């Protein structure tokens, strides 16, 4: 698998670290809504198809990247710096679980 780092160019997946489901939304720091925290900390989407993921180019420029990867074909349709990009989130995470 190749990930095209916007800074370094196309690099082998072994240079990257998977940093999880990119759909997760962190509650406001002072939020006491345990359900929201629980969802953020523990719930992960596992779609068959395009998935919003976070990868870090840990063996390169160390940027975190937002990657849209097809979990069936490993096809990567989009890679952008995580900084400066509001993530494209899945509309209903709870619904997706059911």
């Amino acid at each position, binding site marked *: *698998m*190749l990930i095209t780092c916007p800074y370094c160019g196309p690099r082998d997946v072994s240079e990257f*670290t998977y940093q999880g489901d990119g759909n997760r939304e962190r509650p406001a*720091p002072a939020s006491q809504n345990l359900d929201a925290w629980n969802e953020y900390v523990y719930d992960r989407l596992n779609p068959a198809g395009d998935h919003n993921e976070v990868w*870090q180019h840990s063996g390169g420029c*160390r940027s975190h990247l937002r990657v849209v990867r097809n979990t069936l*074909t490993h096809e990567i349709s989009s890679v952008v710096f995580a900084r400066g990009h509001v993530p494209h989130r899945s509309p209903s995470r709870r619904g997706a679980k059911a």
Partner: protein
Amino acid sequence: MSPRRATSGGRIDRLRTIRFTFDGKAFTGHAGDTLASALLANGVTLFGRSFKYHRPRGVLTAGVDEPNALVTVLRGDVREPNVPSTAVEIYDGLVAESQNRFPSLKWDVSAVNQLAGKLISAGFYYKTFMGPAIGPFKGTRFWMLCEHFIRRAAGLGRAGRAADPSRYERMNAFCDVLVVGSGPAGLMAAAAAADKGARVIVAELDARLGGSANWSGETIDGMPAAEWAAGLAEGLKTHPNIRVLPRTTVWGFYDGNMLAALERVTDHKERPAKGEPRHRHWVIRTKKVVLATGAMERPLIFPGNDRPGVMLASAARRYANEFGVLAGSKVALFTNNDNAYHAAVALQKAGAGIAAIIDVRANISDAMRNLASDAGAQIHTGHAVVATEGRTAVTSIKVQRFEATNGGLSGEARTIQADCLLMSGGWSPAIHLASQAGAKARWDNELQAFLPPEPTQSWIGAGAFNGSFSTTEAIAEGHAAGLAAAGAKAAANDDLPVADAVAGDPAPAPVFEIRANGKSFVDFQHDVTSEDVRLAHREGFVSVEHLKRYTTLGMATDQGKTSNIPGLAIMAAALGKPIPEVGTTRFRPPFAPVSIGSLAAERYGDIRPERLTPMHDWHVKNGASFYAAGLWHRPMIYGHAGETIEQAYVREAKATRETAGIVDVSTLGKIAVQGPDAAEFLDRVYTNMFSTLAIGKARYGFMLREDGIAMDDGTTWRLGKNDFLMTTTTANAGKVMQHLEYFLDIIWPDLKVTLTSVTDQWAGAAIGGPKARDILASCVKGTPVDNAALPFMGIVHGKIADVPVMICRLSFSGEMAFEVYSGADYGTHVWQALIDAGKPFGLVPYGLEALGTMRIEKGHVTGAEIDGRTTARDLHLDWMLSSKKPFIGSAMMDRNGLTSSDRLQLVGLLSLDNRPFNGGAHVVEELDEQNPHGSIGHITAACYSPALGRYIALALVKGGKARHGSRAFVSDPLRKRFGPVQIVSHHFYDPEGSRMHG
């Protein structure tokens, strides 16, 4: 002259004789022979015994698809089992053995299994040996009893015990076009692509390039096809854009057009050249792939089709044309298609007599009749072979009238004398790599074959791989594929080589099996018969994936290259469904067996990088022995002659507490946290406040994970308003860095903070003990180090031996202590200056053992206690949890499960029997050495405490603090250590901290 060697012909070097042994017997062959061709030339027909029934087996194929003629190749003490003899190039001194026979190939005692054939059908072992539901041999016990004997009787070659001394290599390669296969299609594709400027790699699994051109016997551009191919191959080898990889099997097609290949560099050599690896693992990234992998001929399924001397027609044609070897002297052929007629001609030309051609089809073309008459063969149309005879080789065959439309047999069986039977059941394109790359294969009813799927990755097919079986098509498709891969187009007036061959009908009759009495083998290597497939169907296995697992069809080392399609066809017939509805299993890597050594390559053995501190050489010179801590090497003790480890660390710790000690702390993780929002950022990641920290002061910090569990601790120094130096534990340096980067990039991109790992930029020495300040005062210039200038947690800048240093007064040992940081390159210089300054005061260097001892005495936590399960409260660090601000983990840390009173909490243990503890030992309320149970916790760290004069430990124990003062027991059944302990506070030594503050 060898009995089966043709007098002329073949691509072997008849002037070079090669000597080798097979089963201890000496043989000769010629350069260019495979082990199979050389043995066949010597008249050997029996190559091994079969997997389950121990039936005698010969050679079925001439290549990588061979299921039968597997051998073990020996090199010194190293045994390589299950190698197809059809893919072993002979060399002087080659030693090979047949497999699965005892005591010898000819006299094999387990051959009685043949008589028990009916009993050992599919699922036999499971049905029989999984045992009854009751009684002494209940369930799997019976299996466990029998398994040893079964494993010995059934199976393939035996692996050796000797270590493999070979070297293996891994290579990464990049190209525009990777051409897999070097038959006419592959050669044309490579030449066309390279001429258009593309960088090309050609991989060929055989030693010789040319593929079918080497054995087709056809003419291309007026010359023998083999010569045409050799000329073109020579051109490729010298082409500046082309890298040719012979003996290289492309075995995996992965995402993003990345392919894996195995190059057998020296397997064919008596002695490798200096520095040559045995195998080379290639990882090839390419823009386009041209798949010109050809096709594999299928056997026909009929009783006795596994007898030595029964061979694929194309294999015999290859042995005759490429190796000058005759598969038999009196040859019969059995076919459902035109291909066998070409084989008959080839064998006749090479000197064999053709006894008969048995064709299941009622009608054949005039062209084929002419070929048969050229070969002097009698044709039996509308007939089928129903039996073969002979003990370890075919002596005769039986044929009967056959109706291809319904499979019916009629009339009397006639016997035909023949010492070799060649069969052709049609061709299956070698679509393995395309199938791996994704998408399902398509069934072609005309060709009776699965054709490659529509590409889901960037590949182009050419030639027989596409089901285009003629050389003319291969040349045109290869040329077009090569041009397309290079981004160009083929033109109608392109001057292509002209192949001259008698055209045959590529479509076989849809006949896979002749149903008559006797065992008809589908999977030769796993001894799966057509009856086994039908049994599986009767027992309810209808999915092709289940069929495969139940019968083990196609699961042997050859992965069913010859057996998958016939097996599928028989299953489809049993189900009464057309083949495409039954479907086929998906091919997965590897295409052919891959040596594990090649995958490990240079990563085998200890060639990991080493991290050494700047003072490493000093430690070595001064008698340190080392611990590996991750990649770091850290001094464990500076042992004196005759000292045990315990004696050494006790001496070092004692000296530190009595006078002074110095330890290398360069391995601590160090992260520069800088920027206008640095203080705010640290407030968010640490549980305690850092924005209130004064410039020139340090503070102990504690961080949690998002789920409220403890993550890491360390001190962070404020060097300026917007400039902090964070330290982490040695083990977590990378993890903490990544954690911080994640939050800055993903969660708080608005914070103006930069993070820089500076672990390797600073050398650190911690000097502690009652004399530590005096030692510093005697060598530090430019700053006082007294209590006023350098209070607890204070930072000063000065010079030691003319080198700038940064000194922070903080303590891990519990003594008055200082961490002295200098630029890494000055590490040894400053360290030596401190050692020299300390000499009059009795300063000693100490290692990790003494460091650990002193921290246990103080009850400080490390990774052993911050183990990914403990919370701040478990470690009595609740005072670190600020209530004035949210921080990472603050929302989750108060969940019920994390605050309950029976959680494991940090305590101290005193040994009451004056014996040492071990980390990992359990703590129990009642001792039961026979049946250890009832753990209330475990020991995390243990030592002999020189300060207390006894063995102590830190432990995580249920209910922790409430048990202070109570008795318990240590229970360590693995190390047989049981005994009484007293549970106490984890602050063993100087709980008020008067020594470090003093």
